[in-house]
């Protein structure tokens, strides 16, 4: 059907924010658009925003649920700074999220939800849609989504409430039209998930098509945008979030090592999902323990590692505080295990559902005595997979507990992941000595300084280990001054030597010049994008990203020397900055952000421009 009014235009990327009541299905809508776009061929990145109160009254401000995603024709690393499109399904979500929308952005509203009742629940005395300024600031589309959905579902034998639940598919259909996404994938998905309930499946299909049709036929929508496919390495892909990727990584490591995985944990936001996942994987010899508290979870992890399993525990900031004494025991026992910290806003109970990067110094120093251990941090949701495997590799090769500093933003955010084939993954080399001749519990490997991992059940090698200080080599309890000093040195050296086994730091952008942006953890996306933009503007900026926080890559000092200034953006008050300064006697510029939100690209871009002005 030829429609001369419809123009086609191309965009490189679009950021869309869906928001509504928690009962409005925004997470479902967002994730369906994500998968559809990914299958279509765009690169995607997401930022789900869960309501602060899960069972808040419908329509209230506390119950607002949102999902932001960006899709593009090139590689992207963030879910977008400010959305280009805001789809608001009720007044409360409109109130909470309107400020985020770009000036002249597209605003799509479900008109029917802006009833007197809906407005009252959101605390509006008057209808904000009546404000003439609104239409001048944004491209407004006020759509009777609920009515149109109900109309489309006429004749179906469903209760009204059930039909209204389908309006999120209407919104999805409309947005699909707006960006010329095919509906096939979603229709397949509806068939698969709702196939058993024919009426509901039909209702969802109709609502979806009604939304799409509305975009096509309504004169209000005169432009259909194109976002072409991005370049992709061939392979099989799926969408994955950070917690899923971490869980898969840990299990994969255990499979590569031919060992059971023992995962002990106490439920804590935002790490509990890893425990939930693991508990479903018994068929892969994953043994989960829901311990009575954080300390028990860490103790169980130590016991399991002592027994020879690949052992891990997962928690968030407050849990790490509780585990600290037990982590120290693991450091003294020099056993391989992984401690996953999905960081969240602190201190104390803080902001359980918000993201932060404030546990770095805790991971480094939050224990009594000189207690070094390696610290890794994934850069993106899919990087959580590789980081988890790497953590176990380091743990086992160097006989040490290893910290993974993930964060809420990565844990819940998702992106496409190219599924590796098992044959691509390097196997684990693990040796459990069983020859009693000459065996000493703390007799170290000359290169790594790792002690031998002798398992109980091995005849003739019975020995005792513990938290007290020991004599080198023999491991016998000793308080002798020289023994303590020597053992401290050996424990520190062991961790430092890991630098010889990890990759050197890579730099993108300018290899030397005015400014280096040094990032870690989930700030990767915003930092790399900001530097790319700065380079396009001709600024002399380079970007390096640390995945290893302890030990640092062996060339970090050299890299820093190549730049006049070093700027470190982090969601804390300068923790990495403190470490870099202390180690390299080098000044750095802090860019802190403590708002429970990840960096936007413009946060970092602005700072770059300020520094180089």
């Amino acid at each position, binding site marked *: 059907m030829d429609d001369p009014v419809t123009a086609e235009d191309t965009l490189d990327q679009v950021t869309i924010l869906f928001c509504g009541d928690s009962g409005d299905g925004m997470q479902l809508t967002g994730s369906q658009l994500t*998968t559809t776009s990914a299958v279509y*061929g765009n690169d995607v990145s997401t930022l789900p925003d869960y309501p602060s109160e899960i069972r808040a009254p419908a329509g209230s401000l506390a119950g607002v649920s949102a999902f932001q995603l960006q899709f593009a024709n090139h590689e992207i690393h963030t879910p977008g700074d400010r959305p280009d499109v805001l789809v608001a399904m009720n007044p409360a979500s409109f109130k909470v999220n309107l400020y985020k929308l770009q000036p002249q952005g597209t605003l799509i509203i479900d008109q029917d939800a802006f009833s007197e009742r809906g407005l009252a629940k959101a605390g509006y005395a008057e209808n904000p849609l009546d404000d003439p300024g609104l239409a001048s600031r944004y491209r407004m589309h006020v759509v009777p989504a609920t009515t149109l959905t109900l109309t489309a579902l006429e004749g179906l034998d469903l209760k009204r409430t059930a039909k209204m639940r389908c309006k999120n598919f209407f919104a999805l259909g409309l947005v699909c039209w707006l960006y010329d996404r095919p509906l096939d*994938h979603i229709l397949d*998905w509806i068939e698969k998930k709702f196939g058993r309930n024919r009426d509901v499946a039909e209702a969802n299909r109709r609502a979806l098509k009604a939304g799409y049709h509305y975009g096509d036929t309504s004169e209000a929508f005169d432009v259909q945008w194109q976002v072409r496919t991005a370049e*992709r390495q*061939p*392979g*099989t*892909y*799926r*969408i*994955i979030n950070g917690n899923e990727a971490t869980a*898969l990584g840990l*299990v*994969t490591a255990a499979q590569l090592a031919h060992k059971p995985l*023992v995962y002990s944990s106490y439920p804590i936001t935002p790490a509990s999902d890893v425990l939930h996942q693991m508990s479903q994987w*018994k*068929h*892969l*010899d994953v*043994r989960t*323990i829901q*311990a*009575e*508290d954080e*300390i*028990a*979870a*860490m*103790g*169980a*992890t*130590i*016991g*399991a*590692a*002592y*027994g*020879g*399993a690949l*052992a891990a525990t997962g928690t968030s900031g407050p849990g790490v505080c509780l585990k600290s004494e*037990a982590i120290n*025991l693991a450091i003294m*026992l020099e056993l391989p295990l992984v401690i996953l910290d999905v960081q969240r806003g602190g201190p104390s109970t803080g902001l359980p559902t918000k993201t932060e990067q404030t546990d770095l110094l805790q991971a480094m120093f939050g224990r009594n005595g000189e207690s070094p251990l390696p610290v890794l941090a994934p850069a993106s949701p899919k990087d959580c997979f590789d980081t988890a495997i790497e953590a176990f590799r380091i743990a086992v090769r160097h006989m040490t507990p290893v910290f993974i500093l993930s964060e809420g933003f990565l844990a819940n955010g998702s992106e496409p992941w190219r*599924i590796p*084939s*098992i044959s691509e993954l390097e196997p684990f080399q693990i040796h459990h000595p069983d020859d009693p001749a000459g065996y000493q519990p703390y007799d170290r490997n000359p290169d790594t300084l790792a002690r031998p991992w002798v398992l*109980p*059940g*091995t*005849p003739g*090698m*019975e*020995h*005792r*280990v*513990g*938290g007290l200080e020991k004599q080198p080599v023999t491991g*016998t*309890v000793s308080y002798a001054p020289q023994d303590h000093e020597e053992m401290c040195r050996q424990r520190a050296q062991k961790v430092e030597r890991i630098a010889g086994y990890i990759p050197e730091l890579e730099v993108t952008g300018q290899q030397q010049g005015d400014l280096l942006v040094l990032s870690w953890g989930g700030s990767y996306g915003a930092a790399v994008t900001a530097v790319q933009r700065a380079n396009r503007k001709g600024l002399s900026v380079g970007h390096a990203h640390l995945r290893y926080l302890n030990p640092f890559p062996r060339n970090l000092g050299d890299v820093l020397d190549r730049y006049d200034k070093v700027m470190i953006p982090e969601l804390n008050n300068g923790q990495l900055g403190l470490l870099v300064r202390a180690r390299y006697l080098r000044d750095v510029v802090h860019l802190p952000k403590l708002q429970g939100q990840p960096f936007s690209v413009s946060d970092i871009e602005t700072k770059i421009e300020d520094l180089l002005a």
Partner: protein
Amino acid sequence: MKSDAEPVTLTRKDFVSAQEVRWCPGCGDNAILAQVQKTLPELGIPRENIVFISGIGCSSRFPYYMNTYGIHSIHGRAPTLAMGLKVARPELQVWVVTGDGDALAIGGNHFAHAMRRNIDINILLFNNRIYGLTKGQYSPTSAIGTRSISSPDGSIENPVNPVGVAIGSEAAFIARTVDVFQKHMSEILTRAANHRGASLVEIAQNCIIFNDGAWAHMTDPDNRKENVLYLEHGQPMRFGKQGEKGIRLNGLNPEVVLVEEAGEENLLIHDEKAAEPTLAYLLSRMGPPDFPIPVGVFRAIDKPAYSQRLMQQVHAAQSDRQPDLETLFRQGECWDVS
């Protein structure tokens, strides 16, 4: 628990480590160590399959003196390491050595949960009613009014007893013995080892320095028969120099009677296997001045152990689903790019 390995002939010497024993001379721990080293060879388990895990305290020096695998861990947390170890290696025989402070103060939480979960471990709780290692503070089992270095005016706390806590935690095997009751301890240790599930053995232990004589009314040879009630499954409860006294139930309350007067047929018969721990609980409340202290096995019922149940689930899952990583990776929606 018994192992499937070839029967081995071990002797006491095999379990003695090279470590010089550093407990105070006359400490009850020495007697316990001696019995454990004597009893373990008779269990028929290969030495390499035995692990001792302790917390912190004088009791917790124990693993260093045993020539088995051992971990001297942190205060109160030994049951947690034991839990992880049993999950990783259900076939090992794991002993937890703890004390009244380690298990009932800082470790109270883990102590209760280990028994609740029925982790297949043997918990030896050395109860000397004081904190020895840290120089004599009162403990959760010290009598109210105990004068100690941190309670010079007398403790103002009501004590608990380990047997009562164990009953409240649903423990399936609960026993009490005394450091100097050599033969008795050996029998109890053997029974605990053979019982599948969490086996608690409270060992009344004398701290010669900080709380000497705390159990003297039981250990003093002149009074032992008067003050100790030896529990035997199926046997009437009798004690006294000539066994002339017995325990009878009066309503819900036990009372001490003369057997001749009351008639032996009316005495309480000990039943370890009772489904409910009611009798065990009544026994746990008995002590001076009105009652003898019961020793022996209070309760010994059969319940599946934690790692047993877990491995059942694991094996069921393994036969249900292909243990295949490639399939796991493809959870959710996938698509191909060519």
